[in-house]
């Protein structure tokens, strides 16, 4: 009967696993950052519009 000499060679799967884990986390973080950036731009634009509207109403 052949005996296993040491652990199985599964380094590639480990790297794939952590690539997926960290990759999904990174995608979510980037998604959050982009949403923050877009909302800040929207807020700045809308605040300018509100100021213009209120000034023209006066």
């Amino acid at each position: 009967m052949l005996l296993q000499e040491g652990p199985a060679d599964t380094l590639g799967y480990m790297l794939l696993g952590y690539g997926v884990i960290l990759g999904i986390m990174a995608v979510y973080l980037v998604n959050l950052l982009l949403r923050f950036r877009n909302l800040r731009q929207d807020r700045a634009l809308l605040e300018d519009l509100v100021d213009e509207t209120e000034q023209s109403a006066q």
Partner: protein
Amino acid sequence: MKPMPAGLRVLTGLTVVLFGLALYMVFVYAPREVVMGEVQRVFYFHVAAGWVGALAFLVVAIAGIIYLTRGGRRWDHVAVASVEIGVVFTLINIASGSIWARPIWNTWWTWDPRLVTATVMELVYIAYLMLRQGIEDPDRRAKLGAVYGIVGFISVPMTFLSIRLLRTIHPVVIGSGDPTAEGAFDMTPRMLQAFLFSLLTFTFVYASLLWHRLRLQSLADRVEELKLRVLSA
């Protein structure tokens, strides 16, 4: 929107440090498992991600109960933020589990109770997010979300208990499990330390993300408020 609170800065910084330490413990401190080899190291973040998913969905249920009993839009914001994080980390759990399974079970997927219940749990909460998109009225959306979040939580203990109550190929690492499970291993002290540290780290990751996500929601609310002011002017 107010500048980032000092508490959030500290929490974020601490989370980053803990994450770095967790990576060290997983790749350097913890020993290589004697049978499965390096792929066993996926276990530490695989389980930690599953823990965050369960924690996040528990928070959703609690927030739903508080919203229905006391009201307060903030609790609805907590729920939707927590669902989002829970869905992401449950996806990490399922995907990493599949990658670990390939060399150990010789398959990417099997219709095992744990895999099926975890996937059902993920789909339940993806449906939560989709359901919310289809409801215009904020109050109705919040109420429906609260009820859904409470009922949907049933999927979490079902997933956790599946490997303890049913015949399964998925190992039970803590406690006794099915002797036919493949991939089980006894943790050495260093493995246990790395495992517990990963759980702690991911708890901090969840808390940080939740707080940041809530700030995002506040910003979104402010933008909606400004849109209404522009439209009504």
